[in-house]
């Protein structure tokens, strides 16, 4: 069932990425020199216990946070050389986001939320692509609804559609199923996997749920700001097993 991506291009990478919060006594090393590549057209999950730096890694990769040292590349663009305006444009044009909660603007309809990044950019909506995405997420009859008229799963699917519709270089998803019941979560996760398979989208997802990680092509394990392991073609059992190991290490330490 797994098909190899047509080109082994790198969609994003980090080189010796360090992020340090605070100074002196309160100094916390969130990322201690992480080097990682995200191949285009692949679905990567980042896992790790809380405080492992997985969210920080994602925020730095997604141009939401600045790094202390090291480089982050989205495509061929190095982020640390960009000013705020250029970062904003990069986020708008090259990156898609799916957050755990509060993913939609409450005053806009589902359709308006989906086309929001394109509208902000003033770019035309590719009608065929839009219909294709909508059909895939199964929201055709919900487009004129406001977020508060949609269920949590539907809201998250709208967020997914929004991330896809601008055809970004890479989509970052931060615990996308964290607020959903298991059925809605499964819907969203399978939709994300379909978008990788069918649309060759690149997705990086932070999660602490082994079942969610099992939908990815590859899982990265983070602990104490370092990548400590990597697993291809994960299953929930294998991931869970691996995570238990961390907890044991954590408890021993």
């Amino acid at each position: 069932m797994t098909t190899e991506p047509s080109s082994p291009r790198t969609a994003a990478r980090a080189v010796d990425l360090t992020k340090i919060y605070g100074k002196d006594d309160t100094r916390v090393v969130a990322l201690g020199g992480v080097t990682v590549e995200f191949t285009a057209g692949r679905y990567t999950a980042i896992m790790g216990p809380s405080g492992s730096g997985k969210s920080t890694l994602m925020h730095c990769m997604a141009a939401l946070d600045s790094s202390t040292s090291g480089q982050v590349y989205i495509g061929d663009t190095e982020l640390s050389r960009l000013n705020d305006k250029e970062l904003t444009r990069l986020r708008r044009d090259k990156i898609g986001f799916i957050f755990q909660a509060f993913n939609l603007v409450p005053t806009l309809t589902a359709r308006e939320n989906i086309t929001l990044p394109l509208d902000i950019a003033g770019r035309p909506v590719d009608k065929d692509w839009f219909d294709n995405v909508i059909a895939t997420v199964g929201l055709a009859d919900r487009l004129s609804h406001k977020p508060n008229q949609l269920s949590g799963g539907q809201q998250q699917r709208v967020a997914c559609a929004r991330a896809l519709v601008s055809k970004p270089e890479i989509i970052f998803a931060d615990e996308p199923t964290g607020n959903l019941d298991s059925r809605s979560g499964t819907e969203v996760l399978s939709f994300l996997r379909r978008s990788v398979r069918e649309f060759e989208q690149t997705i990086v997802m932070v999660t602490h749920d082994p079942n969610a990680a099992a939908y990815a092509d590859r899982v990265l394990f983070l602990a104490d700001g370092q990548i400590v392991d990597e697993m291809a073609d994960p299953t929930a059992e294998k991931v869970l097993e691996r995570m238990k190991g961390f907890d044991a290490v954590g408890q021993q330490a």
Partner: protein
Amino acid sequence: MIRATLKSLAARKLRLAMSAFAIVLGVAFVAGSYVFTDTIDRTFDDIFGGLSSDVVVRPDLPGETDLFSGFATGTTTTIPSGLVDEVAGLPGVERADGEIENQSFFVLDTDGDVMTTQGAPGIAVNWHDGANAEGDPVLELVDGELPAGPGEVALDDRTFENAGYQIGDEVQFVSSGDEPRVSAELVGVVRFGESGSLAGASLSVFETGYAQELFLDGEDAYNRISVTAADGSSAEEVRDEISAILPGDFEALTGAEVDEETASAIEEGLGFFNTFLLVFAAIALFVGVFLILNTFSILVAQRSQEMALYRAMGAGRGQVTRSVLLEAFVVGVVGSTLGLLLGLGVAQLLKWVFGLFGLELGGGLVLLPRTVVISYVVGIVVTMIAAFVPARRASRVPPVAAMRDDVVNTESSRRVHLWVGAPLTLLGAAAMATGLFADVDDAALMVGAGIFAVFIGVALLAPVLVAPVLRVVAGWYPRAFGTVGRLARENALRNPRRTAATASALMIGMALVTAISIVGASANATVDSALDDGVRAQFVVSNAVGQPFSPTIAEEVSQVDGVDEVVSVRMSGGIVDGDQTFLQAFDPVAYSRAADLEMVEGTDELGPGQFLIGEDQAESEGLSVGDTVRLQLPGSDEDIELAGIYAQSPLLAGGVVVSQQTLEDGAVPSLDTLLYVIADDGADLATLHDGLDEATADIPTVTVQDQEEYKQQSRDQVNQLLFLVYALLGLAVLIAVLGIVNTLALSVMERTREVGLLRAVGMSRRQLRRTIRLESIAIAVLGAVLGVALGLLFGVSLQRAIADDGLEVLSIPGGQLIVFVVLAAVIGVLAAVWPARRAAKLDVLRAITTE
């Protein structure tokens, strides 16, 4: 609970400061008004308090004295010197001094300009050294000598300092007597009372004989007698003793009675001023209520989780309500204290401004306990009232609601708005209409309460009006600004109640400004039309503030080459059938050549003992030709007969017209208020203008104006008043702007995560700022549109109501109203600056992860 409240207050210092600011401004205005008028009061008390002697004898005037002093006409009835001697001879009297006083004798400075503040009297008196009721001298010689004979004068020290004369110089005067120009040698300087302050007036002192020559045609008589009681006799006894021998047209009063009369007349005059300021204070507070209401509503909404937590932990609804009210109380106390301090500053500023215009107020500011109490009561009560609604709402927050993100307005509350707002608006409109059009007591109160009710009613209706009006005001946003525009429009519509309350504050200011501008424009248009259609004379000679002048000027003007005829108009107060009435006196035949006067009934041959009246007044009073009314003047009390009825014209406003002889017979001084100058056929008007200027050159109190200049002067007077009112209403608008700033800033805080999301998906800072700016403009323009609509209603009804009283022409300054709406948009831009910057500065990551 109390500790928790205070802690939550301290944690929200900025928001506290913003909502307190409205209170500060409102209270500052209230406190400032009281402090300032109390200070003026004290100044006048100082001036008039020590003025009267034990007993005063004066001609008996009908009605209230201030009516006649108000028109600066006084009376020509004098007290013969024999009567002074007679009074002096009474056993209870130690001494009696005859006094001469004239109130339109103006000192010119060395440049030939009038010394006194416009409108303040130029007082001239004869010297005597009689004491006031306390035994202190009223006037004290501080330099030089006393005037001892003709051609000598002493000036008060303030005037002396400012005029630039030295002792020994010839001082120039303008008099309303037969000699319009007088000069006298300055021999001394006197000081009036303790502070020397005359509140802008000047004082010239002459020797008695010379004063009689100047003001009483040389007659050996006086205007008044100051009586000092002998030891052992009380003022009342002496008054009664004197009354017994006085002829009927004189009266004797104790000094205390005279002082009281003066004080109440001043109080009445200043009372108007105080009311004027307090009305604006009330407006400022009223607008402030909306700001506070809104701030508390938003704060309570934001703290609904906190409230729900208290409720979950077992706090009763009453406790939650009380905690919000306690918070309001603290804000009220802080706001009132700062407002009181700022009010002192406001009063000091007003005092300084008055000083610039020559009305110096001696001594420091007067802060009465009453002012402090009122400031605190007003500030605290208003805040608590404003906080009550959100407090009740807060107490209704069920614990689960706190978990929800946005509490949406329920349909039922909207229905309440409709059912309370609509009847209140109608009720207010009805009260307004009654006050304006029906003949009721307390009409002003009815109109005021009506306007107040309409404001509250419309403010209640506003949440219902927000959606339809915004669809017009901001409907084009998405088309013009794309997503940014759509977001702005939807944000403005998101919480109609909040948007409505914010816009209502601006609505009130805008409505009042609009109404005033309509009244102002109508006043100007009425003056224009009155002068365009009504005045045929080519020139008008008048005093800038309407002070009357010597009739000699009319004679001099009529000698100028090219003058065909000069028509003089005199004005006076009088009592007609028991009512104080404004009288004009002229020869109707001559007048009809100079200005519009058309008889519809009777004759324009107006003799003594006769009068004319406008047709509307004749109808409303039920008068027809041949009917009589009773006219009381200072020196007469007689029935006069209606000789003719004239067609209504804006210039005369339908008032009572009598002959000048009637006024003279009634002992009203012969002074002109206005001269119409009719040019010879074919006379060169420019040359004539120069000639007239030359003829009046040595009388700086009067000016010669052609029709255009005269119109401009009238317009300037209206506009000056308008600008003053605008400046005061500006305060209400300022508070409204703060309200918009506050609402936007708090809304941005509420929407932090949304802002973070928008920024994360690629909205630039500039786009974000524009979104907030557009929302702000939408709210401001919404307020302006509602305000201008209401203002139109108020302005037009006001004009209709007083159309018969001299505001005949309705003029709606359309261009100006458009400017107001555009200004509102600018206000919106300005109000958005700070909230927009705050929003743009939000750290994307922190915003999106905010809880």
